[in-house]
């Protein structure tokens, strides 16, 4: 039975809403972000961008820029090509990516040249003086245009097609056969539109090549510093020991700071050539137009069911727009990420999913925005599909879900698409949500309002997420297994330093990592310093994204701490003058079995480790653990949105929104609640406000915050939250991760609510974002049909 955080037994440090240790420096303005770092003799890089989405580059004239006082260098794709640095490997290795446009520009705002100068302003002025002659070419704006192969985008590839890959999972013939034989069947094309995570701090780098030591120090806005160090080594040929990557405080990432961007490479090349530090910090427009976007999946969702509402089969066929390069940071074996989670929380007897990806004249990317490798798209597809099926069956959408939930006794649950779900109690989580929101009363209210023509909607999302990549046997980046790591050193006085291969960007690791270690060792979390982001000191890790930090690094931390406890037990036995077998760890200290009151604390053990270690034992008290999880974790939740739609304007008011999450064991409820608030706000933005749209000529229409909308406190609804706890059976502390759940689970709750409100008008589906204009148009068109 799922329980709540409040029901759990009291613990030493876990489950406590400890204030964030990192916040005092942030709220005092003492955070140290990339652009705060200024080095002697530092130069600045500005990039020249293509105004065309598709154009042949006929010539680049640097002369005027080089003549500008203060300009030190102008770098083009030709220069990089001569140095064999023109192409970057993409993370999964299926494609390569231009650093600077060379021969052709493949998307609007693509980087064409870099200007290095003594000030940011001069670099910017110099960039304007670089004269590029373009021959505009017809663009490919949609993947549907691209798949016709009338225009071939990538001259550099042997394969003369815009088709990147076909990926499939499941039994196609069986799924199609079951669909054909189903009493009830729905099919809907559902778009998860291109959007952008837009972190408040944009991306940037400060590369510092020290020619005296031969060492390259790279300060960068990185969610994965070690991976970036390896990538830099692979691209430049500089041995990895000569590269030091430091990720200072990072102002939001959401996946946007995982890829390697051209600005990073050009700044590094400039520093290597010139021998002084070179900084590049992108503008908001550069961030929105050139860095890792999210989504852009066109999904045909088909579900079959019996008349009684028991699902029989699922088939999802997706056309994916990957932009000009296949640079999504998906694992090698999973070009479509974890889209196989598309069966969601439901017990489908059979299922099939396929994805065909295409090149278009848009910026590359695809998996950013708080999404565990296409899980947001998958979750949106199944939760919308289930709602559409419920409508067709004339069944309450909650009832349909309940009839098809994977039962708690079915866990570990092997899904028809290959994943083995670890744990969950969907019925309990959903019942809790229904009770809190007062679902039955809301339905009664809705029925009354419908009599007078008012448009009130209730939307449900009972989603299952999949996070925590590894395990290494399935997931990799650049071939590196997706484990993570922790190193703990306990000082003689019982305080300590904790280092991990992750890099937080607001998640609160400095607090939660300390809580995990403190829980395992009975120490004060306030006296455990957490460090991340420095490749010279932290153990190798794969970084923080895809909600993987707690499932992977969190496990490493607990297991490293348990190694310390093992050694501590020997020291405790020495101090207690007893056999190690007679010592047990209980109530957060070492106790002599059967002798009440005879115990030593970890602090006492730590002091002894340096001052009085057991004979023939190694002094000191530290441990390292590289954790490769045996499985992924499967957080889940039941979300309910209540909306009112203004029939005249199309405006949607989110009256209530409840999120009941089950992310396993909660380390810090306050931080988890904050994570949920942030993710729900992003989900709200996706549902109602955000899309990176292009016109017919391939021009990006959302290049700044006037046109790409970010919700403020004024737009954001009030969030209600609650939780249930079904621990992950394979995770060392039972945690599952939560950062992405609200983003993954909420968009469909909003959309389902609006569609529920519009149901009396016969409206089945509207693609996100549900702007008031789109809603108004749907209402107008529906009313026109009736009249």
């Amino acid at each position, binding site marked *: 039975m799922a329980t709540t955080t409040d029901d759990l037994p009291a613990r030493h440090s876990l489950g406590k809403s400890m204030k964030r240790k990192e916040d005092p420096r942030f709220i005092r303005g003492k955070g140290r972000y990339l652009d705060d770092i200024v080095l002697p003799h530092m130069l600045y890089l500005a990039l020249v961008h293509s105004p065309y989405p598709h154009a042949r580059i006929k010539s680049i004239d640097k002369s005027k820029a080089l003549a500008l006082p203060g300009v030190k260098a102008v770098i083009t794709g030709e220069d990089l090509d001569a140095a064999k640095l023109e192409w970057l490997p993409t993370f999964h290795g299926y494609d390569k990516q231009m650093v600077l446009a060379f021969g052709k520009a493949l998307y609007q705002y693509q980087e064409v040249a870099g200007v290095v100068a003594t000030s940011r302003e001069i670099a910017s002025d110099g960039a304007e003086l670089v004269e590029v002659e373009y021959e505009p070419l017809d663009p490919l704006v949609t993947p549907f245009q691209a798949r016709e192969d009338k225009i071939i985008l990538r001259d550099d590839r042997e394969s003369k097609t815009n088709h990147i890959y076909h990926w499939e999972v499941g039994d196609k013939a069986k799924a199609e056969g079951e669909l054909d034989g189903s009493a009830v069947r729905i099919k809907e094309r559902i778009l998860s539109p291109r959007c952008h995570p837009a972190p408040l701090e944009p991306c940037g780098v400060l590369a510092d090549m020290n020619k005296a030591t031969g060492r390259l120090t790279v300060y960068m806005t990185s969610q994965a510093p070690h991976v970036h160090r390896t990538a830099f080594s692979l691209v430049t040929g500089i041995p990895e020991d000569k590269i030091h990557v430091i990720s200072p405080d990072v102002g939001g990432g959401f996946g946007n700071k995982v890829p390697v961007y051209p600005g990073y490479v050009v700044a590094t090349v400039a520093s290597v050539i010139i021998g002084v530090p070179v900084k590049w910090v992108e503008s908001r427009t550069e961030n929105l137009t050139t860095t890792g976007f999210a989504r852009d999946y066109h999904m045909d969702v088909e579900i079959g069911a019996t008349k009684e509402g028991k699902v029989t089969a699922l088939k999802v066929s997706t056309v994916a727009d990957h932009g000009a390069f296949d640079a999504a940071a998906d694992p090698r074996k999973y070009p479509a990420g974890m889209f196989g989670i598309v069966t969601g929380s439901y017990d489908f007897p059979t299922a099939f999913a396929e994805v065909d990806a295409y090149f278009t004249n848009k910026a590359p990317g695809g998996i950013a925005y708080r999404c565990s490798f296409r899980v947001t798209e998958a979750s949106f597809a199944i939760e919308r599909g289930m709602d559409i099926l419920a409508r067709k069956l004339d069944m309450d959408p909650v009832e349909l879900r309940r009839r098809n939930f994977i039962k708690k006794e079915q866990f570990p649950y092997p899904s028809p698409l290959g994943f083995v779900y670890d744990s969950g109690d969907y019925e309990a989580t959903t019942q809790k949500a229904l009770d809190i929101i007062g679902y039955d009363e809301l339905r009664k209210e809705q029925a009354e309002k419908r009599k007078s023509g008012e448009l009130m909607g209730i939307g449900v999302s009972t989603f299952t997420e999949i996070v925590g990549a590894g395990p290494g046997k399935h997931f990799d980046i650049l071939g590196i297994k997706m484990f993570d790591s922790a190193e703990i050193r306990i000082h003689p006085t019982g305080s300590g330093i904790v280092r991990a291969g992750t890099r937080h960007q607001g998640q609160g690791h400095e607090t939660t990592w300390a809580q995990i270690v403190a829980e395992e060792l009975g120490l004060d979390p306030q006296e455990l310093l957490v460090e991340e982001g420095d490749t010279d000191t932290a153990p190798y890790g794969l970084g923080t994204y895809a909600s993987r930090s707690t499932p992977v690094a969190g496990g490493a931390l607990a297991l490293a701490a348990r190694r310390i406890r093992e050694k501590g037990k020997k020291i405790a036995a020495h101090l207690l003058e007893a056999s190690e077998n007679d010592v047990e760890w209980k109530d957060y200290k070492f106790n002599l079995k059967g002798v009440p009151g005879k115990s030593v604390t970890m602090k006492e053990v730590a002091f002894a480790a340096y001052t009085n270690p057991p004979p023939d034992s190694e002094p000191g008290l530290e441990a390292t653990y590289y954790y490769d999880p045996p499985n992924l974790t499967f957080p889940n939740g039941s979300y309910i949105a209540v909306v009112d739609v203004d029939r005249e304007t199309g*405006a949607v008011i989110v009256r209530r929104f409840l999120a009941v999450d089950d992310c396993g064991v909660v380390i810090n409820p306050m931080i988890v609640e904050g994570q949920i608030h942030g993710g729900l706000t992003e989900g709200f933005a996706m549902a109602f406000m955000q899309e990176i749209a292009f016109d017919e000529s391939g021009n990006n229409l959302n290049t700044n915050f*006037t046109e790409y909308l*970010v919700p*403020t406190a004024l737009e954001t609804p009030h969030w209600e939250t609650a939780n249930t706890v079904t621990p992950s059976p394979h995770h060392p502390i039972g945690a599952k991760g939560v950062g992405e759940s609200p983003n993954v689970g909420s968009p469909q709750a909003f959309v389902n609510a609006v569609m529920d409100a519009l149901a009396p008008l016969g409206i089945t589906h509207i693609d996100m974002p549900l702007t*008031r*204009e789109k809603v*108004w148009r749907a209402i107008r068109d529906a009313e026109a049909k009736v009249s």
Partner: protein
Amino acid sequence: MNLNTIREIKRPRSSDEIRHWQDGYAWLAGGTWLFSEPQIHTHTLIDLETLGWRAIASGPGGIEFAATCKIAELYAFHPPAEWKAGQLIGECCRAFLSSFKIWNEATIGGNIVMSLPAGPMISLTVALEGTYTLLPRDGEAREVRAADFVTGNHANVLERGELLRSIHIPGTALAKSFAFRRSELTHLGRSSVLLIGTRGEPVGGLLLTITAATVKPIQLTFDGIPTAAQLCNAIDAAIPESIYLDDVHGSPAHRRHLTYHYAEQIRQELGA
């Protein structure tokens, strides 16, 4: 943004010091737009700050705003309670595509002379029957009705080098009842439709001002409160479909629909 074409910044004590207007000159008020994008043809900025114009002067006949009055100063100004429509000042300040930090620099005049469809200072001053005083470079000051100033999207009646000096809002307009309707994608975002109705009490006519939805302000005057049909007919006659704005904030069709919808709401509210 760094304006890398600027070679000189003039700081005159009087606008008369700038007699001979040249290509490449630009008046600098708050600069919030001027510094937001490249101004490749501009080489000289003439800073209005040094003219020292009094921001706000209020008397029984109305209010005189200097063109250089900051939005923050305007927002902090509270007209007498009997000037009921004075509350539109706050409404229109909040309709800015800007944060309170921008309010500290942006000016009323800057917003008006930009002459963008969603300029809330245009909405405010047109709805309150304002008059603008313009200073040509080589002639006498002239006055223009606010309703006649904007001629299109980013276009107005200003002659070459002509300067907006001040805005007069008559007390008679400020004393009217008002109704305000606005549609926007985000609260602090650009307006897609902004309608203001005013009505003199007790039995005055309805004055309906339509902005943001259209490329230029449209003002409709009624002797009394029109019927719904009369209102629709008047809008039909005054606004051809071609002048409804089309951008990412809304299509002409939606803007047109909302214009009628809000106009009817205003009619009912002020007619009640």
